[in-house]
Structures are given as C-alpha cells and as structure tokens.
C-alpha cells in the first residue's frame, strides 16, 4: 500500500452473477484530492464507488481506508468495524435519497443526533452553518418534495457534511438535473474542492472533471485504463478508447 493514501484499492473484483463488473481495479487517493471518475456507462464506475463505502461487497481484492482494511484479500472485517471505517465517508447519490417524511432540518440533524448522539442544539447550530454554505438557509423547514432537484441535491450534500466526513463520494450527482440546476450543485462541489475536501466523483460532467479535478480516472470495460491529470486525459489522450470517448463528447 502507498504511504499517505487515504484510500488504497488493490485487485478489486466484483461480479453480479456471471457478469464480471470490476476486474482487478487498483488506485490510490490522497488527502485533499478531487478525483473525477469518468468513462462510458455500464463499466462499473458506480459499483466501484459503492464498494468503497460497503454498499456492495467486493469478491476479491483489498480496500484500505485511512490505514484500515475494509476488506483484505476478499475478506471483510466484522459489520461493526466496517461501519466504523465507513463512517469516515459520506455519499451523495444520483437520485438524492433525502428522507421524504422529514423536514430539511431533520434530514440534516437525524444522523448526528441518533447515530453520533450529538445534542440537538449543537446539531441545529451546525445545520444552520452548513445550510448557509450550500445556499439554502431559508429552506430548513421545507419538506424535500417542495424543493427543486438542485436544491434537494445540495441538501443531500449538506446532510453528508453534517457527519464531518474525511472523504465524500459522489455517484453521478448531477445526472438527473437539468443544466441550470446542475450548476448550482457543481458550484457547491467546486467550493468543497477548494476547501480541500477529499472527493471521488463519478460524473459525466466533463467541464467539472477538466476544471476542478486534480486527477481523472478513466474506466472502461478493461478497468482503469488511465489515471492522470485532466490536462493529459483531455488534451493528449493516449488510448484510442479515451480518444474516441473525448471526441464523441466534444462533438455534442
């Protein structure tokens, strides 16, 4: 494993039935990095991300989070240890998954209050600050259904931030939003990147990958076929698959 990496993945493999989705994936993430994970649909980008936070079980390989093994050569730690390791990470989903029966404020304070046993007053105070940061301080009494998609996703980011994560995982956070709403979410993510939050972002937003990411992982059916700076990936793609993918996007 590499010294100083907050996430190290080695030989990660995963199949759904007979379909091999991930085959021998290796990469490292360093503290404060923003990593964009790009590539064609259906090559396991989301599955890769979900393995990191234990929403999917890897069949083989190792995942090391901040010096602790979540899975070592295909063997998982017990559920409690896994939960503890994963508590350092937050996740933002494509379809937000806010709790629809709770107000925005309750969506934010429920996990600090019931999981971390933080007292309600302090959780509420932090919620106010974080809501201000994502530009939704005036919506804390709203129900999720009263918000636009972009607002819901910003609340989802705020909810993840409430748990003070070391690492944030984003699974296509803007894919279900129209261009206008995408921007309000991307600008929050950009702000987080500037604050040196460690982020892994599965995305089809090439603009974001190009401008904000420190590093781009290009995933194809053969696994991670490029792990390089955005400049090199976008301007000097070495691999024909990447070249084709980049060109097809530029053509749009």
């Amino acid at each position, binding site marked *: 494993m590499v010294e100083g990496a907050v996430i190290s993945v080695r030989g990660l493999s995963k199949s759904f039935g007979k379909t091999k989705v991930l085959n021998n994936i290796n990469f490292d993430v360093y503290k404060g990095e923003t990593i964009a994970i790009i590539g064609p649909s259906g090559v396991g980008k989301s599955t890769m991300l979900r393995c990191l936070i234990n929403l999917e079980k890897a069949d083989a390989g190792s995942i090391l989070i901040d010096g602790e093994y979540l899975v070592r050569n295909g063997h998982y730690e017990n559920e409690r240890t896994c939960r503890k390791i994963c508590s350092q990470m937050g996740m933002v989903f494509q379809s937000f998954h806010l709790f629809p029966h709770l107000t925005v404020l309750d969506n934010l304070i429920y*996990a600090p209050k019931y999981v971390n046993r933080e007292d309600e007053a302090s959780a509420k105070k932090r919620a106010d600050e974080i809501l201000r940061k994502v530009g939704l301080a005036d919506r804390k009494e709203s129900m999720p259904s009263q918000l636009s998609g972009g607002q819901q996703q910003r609340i989802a980011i705020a909810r993840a931030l409430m748990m003070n994560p070391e690492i944030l995982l984003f699974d296509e956070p803007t894919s279900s939003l129209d261009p206008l709403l995408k921007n309000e979410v991307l600008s929050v993510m950009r702000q987080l990147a500037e604050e040196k939050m460690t982020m892994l972002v599965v995305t089809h937003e090439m603009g974001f990958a190009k401008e904000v990411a420190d590093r781009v992982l290009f995933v194809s059916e053969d696994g991670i076929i490029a792990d390089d700076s955005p400049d090199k990936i976008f301007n000097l793609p070495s691999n024909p698959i990447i070249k084709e993918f980049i060109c097809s996007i530029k053509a749009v």
Partner: protein
Amino acid sequence: MNFSYLVSIFGQLSDGLKFTVGLFFVTIIFSVPLGLVLSFIRVGSHKIIQRILGGYIWLMRGTPLILQLYFFYYGLSLVTSIQLSRFNAAIVAFILNYAAYFCEIFRGGLLGVSKGQYEAAKVLGFSTLQTNVRIVIPQMLRITLPSVANEFITLVKDTSLITVLAIDEILNLAKKIVNTDVNISAYAVVAVYYLIATFLLTKLFEYLEKKFAY
C-alpha cells in the same frame, strides 16, 4: 313507529357497545403491532419461518372469519384442553385474522420504501433498528394509511359477526328487539351506530393523511 320508540332502542342497544367497541379496540391494539412485526419477518430472508408465516396468512385469509370464530370457541377445546369464553374466543380469532391482513398491508408498504432510503441511512451510519424505526416505518405507515383505514372500517362492521357466538353486541341486541317487538326499526337504529363509527374513523384517517402528507 314514533321518535321516542327509536330513542329508547338507541338506549337499549348501547348495552351492547361494550362488546362491539371492546372487540374493535382490543383487535386494533394487538393486531396492528403483531401485523407490523410479522411484515418485517415476511420481507426477511429466513426460509422456514417464511413458509410458516405464508401458511398462517393463507389459513387466515383463506377461510371465513365466522368459521375461525367457530373454531376458537367450539373447536379449540376438542384439540387442546383450552376452553375460551365466548368473548375471548372472539378476541383471539379477530386478532389472528386481522394481524394476517395487516401483515400483508404493511408488507406492501415496506416494498414501497425505495432501496435508496436504506442506502442513504446506511451511509449515514444508522443501525438496522434505527433505520427501520426512524426512516422506514414512518414512510411505510404513510404509504399504507388508506389501506389501514379500509381495514379499520371493515373491522367495525365485522364485529357484528360475533353474533354467531351468541354474544350480545349491538346487532344481536337489535335482532332480539326486532323479535320481541315485532318491529324492524331496531335494524335501522343499529345501522346508525355503525354509520357514526365509520364516519368518525373516516374523518380521523383524513386528518392523519393530511398530517403525515409529505
């Protein structure tokens, strides 16, 4: 037929309310939590328990409630040494019967809570119990509220089935009055009781649906 006669019947029937209302509340108090617990087992993955539960639900939904009343009053003492009183037999039959229906209603509600809710709860660190209590059950109850209202209203009227065990609930009393007085107005009066009860329940559930709307 005059108004004071109707009022006097209304008063006489109220003697039967303790059975009708009592059966209603006892059934609700026990069958709803029981149905809730069973619904979680039903969506779980334990094969043998699933089979047993499936059999129980089939039995309860597959036979008339009247037959189940007969069984718990007359039949049970033949297979075991337990002889229940008429009303206790009725209570047991109703709880077991309604729990089966509530189990299926709640199961439907649980399947209506999206997988994403469980995932969001998991990545925030909620335990399974916390996820169920704080996230899943509130949403499931909201989804199932209209069906639960339906069951409650059906139960109001089903309480009249215990007439077959010669329990003096309101319909049985009405029948007796009809026979004694040779006048069928008592049936109209008993209908008013059921209509009042179902009206109140309808309003209650309308209020709950609004309150828990999201």
